[in-house]
């Protein structure tokens, strides 16, 4: 570790020109994150040609700021309108929107902003000090490990099942079947695309989640006068700072979620959507008040938001240190470096160590700036909750539909959003679990593809590997933890 280079990197980040790109990237990221359907990967890909003129440092710092800003702002529409703009923000809907209905929108936004910042800072610190070392482990994840990771993620279903466990599990298994639609990756056969070319790549996530959460909610909202319940507290009585203070009460949850975010971020092919659900499940299993999850728990918002932004740092590690981009966004960032004749990979820390450290430090500084910009932006957005539903409902409908189109530019996705909106409404009405369905849809393909590959490559032998076994232990522990905790508490009561 070269401390002289690190010092130089810190000074470089604070140069006015770099700061301008950092701040404008964050603002653009906030905008992308706050508007459902806007996808940071697509916008960054559009901006890619400009990286030639900007040079590697400014371009990558700008792109990283957009990435971080969009992750931090993703929860805004999720909290205020139950409309997740990204798959990773869907987990925030459960408790964020419940808090908004109780008149605690600002508190929820404050908790989310603060946890996002802390998660992002944690991710950046890991990048700076452990990046080159940790990156090597990303290569240890083969099909068996990826399969077990998906199963570990699916264990969160146990926490999402709601009041009717059977209906919750049924929703999850149905999600697994819907996830098999489209071309399977081993032999290239198309399974049940119902004759639609648009489903050859599988069921697209953005239109589905905008339907399941955003549009489904409208069918109930249309019968109410305001998003905020009549019995709710006066929304002016809470502020963003209440949420920030509340989030600081859950430091352990924040830390654990940030660690989950970094680890999942490092593994190529995963991402914030998977990490956020795993984090939500873990937080609920370990919480002293699991019954509050789903009803407006700030602890849940802290868990998801810290994890979401920690993924940003985690995802950067294999991109910079190994030259393996784990997601579409990091692929664009890597391309920006390559366009400027910098080859990311193990040699980057020998040939361009200064640039690598500057990028990592910009992530750290960017998160601090993001907090202060977020204070202003989140306060402005929080007013949305007070708009009457007779005005808000058509606006949310329009944004949900436009957002679903913006993802792939296919008119088919309009209908898909409407269809899943109706389906989500029925799921909710009859006590099924839309989040469990969505989680299975996200993880189903990952689980299937890697299960088949693992069996084809080495058979069941492949499942007897250290990381697989560790993940298996974690999965079992996650499922049994609530039972054990309950038994321990019961044992403590008589003594008390």
């Amino acid at each position: 570790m070269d401390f002289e280079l690190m010092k130089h990197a810190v000074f470089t980040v604070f140069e006015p020109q770099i700061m301008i790109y950092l701040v404008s990237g964050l603002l653009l990221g906030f905008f992308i994150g706050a508007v459902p359907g806007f996808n940071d990967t697509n916008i960054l890909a559009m901006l890619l040609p400009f990286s030639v003129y900007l040079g590697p440092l400014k371009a990558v710092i700008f792109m990283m700021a957009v990435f971080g800003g969009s992750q931090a702002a993703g929860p805004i529409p999720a909290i205020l309108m139950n409309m997740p703009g990204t798959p990773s923000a869907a987990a925030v809907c459960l408790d964020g929107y419940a808090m908004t209905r109780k008149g605690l929108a600002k508190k929820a936004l404050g908790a989310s902003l603060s946890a996002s910042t802390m998660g992002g800072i944690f991710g950046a610190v890991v990048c700076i000090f452990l990046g080159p070392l940790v990156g090597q482990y990303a290569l240890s994840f083969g099909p068996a490990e990826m399969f077990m990771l998906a199963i570990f993620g699916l264990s969160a279903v146990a926490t999402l099942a709601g009041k009717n466990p059977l209906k919750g599990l049924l929703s999850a298994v149905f999600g697994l079947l819907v996830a098999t639609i489209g071309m399977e990756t081993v032999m290239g056969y198309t399974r049940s695309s119902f004759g639609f070319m648009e489903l050859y790549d599988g069921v697209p996530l953005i239109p589905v989640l905008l339907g399941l959460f955003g549009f489904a909610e409208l069918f109930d909202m249309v019968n109410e006068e305001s998003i905020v319940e009549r019995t709710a507290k006066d929304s002016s009585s809470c502020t963003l700072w209440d949420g920030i203070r509340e989030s600081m009460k859950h430091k352990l949850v924040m830390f654990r979620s940030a660690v989950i975010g970094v680890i999942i971020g490092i593994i190529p092919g995963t991402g914030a959507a998977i990490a956020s659900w795993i984090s939500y499940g873990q937080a609920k299993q370990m919480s002293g008040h699991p019954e509050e999850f789903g009803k407006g728990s700030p602890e849940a918002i802290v868990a998801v938001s810290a994890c979401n932004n920690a993924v940003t740092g985690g995802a950067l590690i294999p991109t910079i240190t190994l030259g393996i981009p784990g997601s579409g966004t990091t692929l664009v960032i890597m391309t920006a470096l390559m366009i400027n004749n910098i080859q990311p990979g193990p040699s980057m820390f020998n040939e361009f160590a200064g640039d690598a450290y500057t990028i990592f430090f910009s992530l750290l500084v960017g998160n601090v700036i993001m907090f202060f910009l977020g204070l202003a932006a989140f306060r402005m957005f929080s007013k949305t909750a007070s708009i009457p539903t007779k005005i808000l409902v058509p606006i949310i409908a329009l944004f949900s539909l436009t957002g679903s189109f913006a993802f792939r530019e296919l008119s088919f996705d309009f209908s898909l959003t409407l269809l899943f909106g109706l389906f989500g409404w029925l799921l909710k009405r009859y006590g099924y679990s839309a989040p469990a369905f969505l989680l299975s849809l996200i993880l189903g393909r990952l689980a299937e593809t890697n299960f088949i590959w693992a069996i084809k490559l080495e058979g069941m032998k492949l499942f007897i590997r250290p990381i697989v076994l560790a993940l298996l232990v974690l999965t079992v522990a996650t499922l049994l933890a609530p039972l054990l905790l309950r038994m321990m508490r019961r044992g403590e009561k008589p003594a008390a």
Partner: protein
Amino acid sequence: MKKVDRGEFIVPGIMATFIAAYHWQVLSIPSEVLLWPYLVTGILLAMMAATVVRILKGAYGTTKEWSLKKPAALLLVTVIYLAAMPFLGYAASSFLFLFGTQAYLGANKKIAFFVSLVLTALLHLVMIRIIDLDLPRLVTPFLTL
């Protein structure tokens, strides 16, 4: 015997229809690539059977009354909006959708008109002019919306 809510059969019904349609479509595909779907379907059918048995026993009780008028109207207006979009273009149909729905739900017409106009203009500017999304457009001799 407890009263059975017939609405409870809607979701299992949708799932059963989907399973039937899914497996009918993959009849000609080698079973090798259907290992996972078969496994999932087996579990799904078992769980559906258990759910239906519980519904028939009245274990889930009855759900509260539906208030379907406004949700049905919203669904209908959205379908009309999507059907009209290829002909009217994104901007014009979005304006009509916003204004019409707000007016139907009881919003002040002046406010509804202003909100619809500003939002449509904003979305048109961002989605069509700046990002250049391939949304349907209304081409007139004088301007393209």
